[in-house]
């Protein structure tokens, strides 16, 4: 147990982006995404501009394109909807490779793919440069209610407990003659899901009580809170990304 786990997406590095305080990065990322979504979908050049911005930040953060694009595939199930739109949409239609596609639907599909991908890349850059611990610290500094940061802290902590407990239960099953292969182990897993939950809770409750007995009162120690809070300069540096994005969005809206 203890800190230092669960940084699945974190890429260890000392780049300027890594060194920025988390609250600054979260704010910049959210504002960037809002600017992207507010852009009219016909302004193709604007999306090229956003992509360049993402590439620049990725280069600054020393996050490689292979890692970034590989992880971005997570988006796929969520944007499948986009691929159906050219067939489902109404209005004017064009023939492409023998298929009759709706123009509005094609625009819609581009809209979802472009905005979705840019959003995913921005999240991945945040995840690659910020540990989960820092992420919660950032949310706390952004005045997120304590009950939410508390739930988030325990969620990330207990994910490890849950995974560890599931591994132990699987090992116990295997050593008693179960032979799980591929999908069939789902059955054994489903039968034990209640037990898994209970075991993980009891372990998690001990973790919690250990924390309480060491002075935990619902917030991480003040040492973490105070040190490294963002300076005005850091806010200004990080603000360049959403500022550029906002000007692109404004230009696209005006030129429309």
């Amino acid at each position, binding site marked *: 147990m203890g800190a230092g786990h669960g940084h699945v*997406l974190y890429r260890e590095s000392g780049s300027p982006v890594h060194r920025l305080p988390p609250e600054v990065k*979260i704010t910049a990322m959210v504002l960037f*995404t*809002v600017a*992207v*979504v*507010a852009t009219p979908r016909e302004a193709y050049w604007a999306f090229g501009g956003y992509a360049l911005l993402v590439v620049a930040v990725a280069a600054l953060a020393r996050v490689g394109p292979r890692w970034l694009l590989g992880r*971005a595939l*997570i988006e796929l199930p*969520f944007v*499948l*909807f986009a691929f159906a*739109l050219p067939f*489902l*949409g*109404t*209005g004017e239609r064009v023939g492409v490779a023998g298929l009759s596609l709706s123009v509005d639907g094609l*625009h*819609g599909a581009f*809209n*979802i*793919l472009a*905005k*979705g991908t840019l*959003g995913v890349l*921005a*999240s991945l850059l*945040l*995840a690659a440069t910020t540990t989960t611990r820092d*992420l919660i610290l950032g949310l706390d500094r952004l005045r997120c209610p304590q*009950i*939410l940061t*508390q*739930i*988030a*802290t*325990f*969620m*990330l*902590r*207990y*994910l490890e407990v*849950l*995974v560890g407990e599931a591994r132990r239960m699987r090992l116990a099953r295997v050593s008693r003659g179960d032979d799980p292969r591929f999908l069939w182990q789902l059955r054994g897993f*489903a*039968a034990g*899901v*209640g*037990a898994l*939950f*209970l075991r*993980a*809770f*009891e372990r*998690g*409750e*001990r973790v*919690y*009580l250990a924390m309480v007995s060491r002075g935990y009162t*619902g917030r991480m120690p003040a040492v973490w809170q105070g040190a490294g809070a963002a300076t005005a300069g850091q806010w200004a540096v990080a603000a360049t990304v959403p500022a550029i994005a906002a000007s692109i969005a404004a230009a696209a809206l005006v030129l429309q």
Partner: protein
Amino acid sequence: MHISNGIIDGPVAAIFAAFALAALAFCVLRGRADLDDRLAPMAGLVAAFIFAVQMLNFPIFTAGVSGHLLGGALAALLVGPWVGALCVAVVLVVQALVFGDGGVAMLGLNITNMAILGTAAAYLLIALLLRVLPRTPAGLAVTAFVSALVSVVVASQGFVLQYWLGGTTDLGGNLGGLAGTMAVAHLLIGIGEGLITATTVVTVAKVRPDLVYALRALKKPAVPAPAVPVAGGAR
């Protein structure tokens, strides 16, 4: 079920963001009173469990939509409606910020569907069914199954409503088709969700009934619930 950036237009997303923010603020106010030494670790575990379970995605290729388990009913049963909605919301926020599951700009829509609509529908049904059904493990199982099933379908129809209000592509007469596809697909997902919710809650209720919020809040047992056990088990 996670709406990614660009599927719904900006103004509608902003309206639902305001709605979600107000609803969450209310949940924070009500949830604070609930969150004691027993509920805090449980809320964390429920959130972790939902987080893990939402990783299982079932793409529905014919319609181009994807669905997954939501966990709203499980949260409502184990930690109550207020903290439960917050748990689901935290999962969605972390997924959006870190994994890019569901767009950050669409968070209000996603929270409204999954955290608020899903949990509210589940808890209303739980409150009703627990009073009507016999107080047996079977009664609890049926309550969990039905409330989970209905909450998933209700949440999916929340998306249909939002698409009707602000979908970026006009589907014309196909909106009914979208509603039907979403309902049928989420009925199937709901059955899976119902089974997982029922198994989990019944197991917990058998061993540690004091941990199930719905049983504490709605049944008023004659014997006071046992105190939190002292740490230091042998395991």
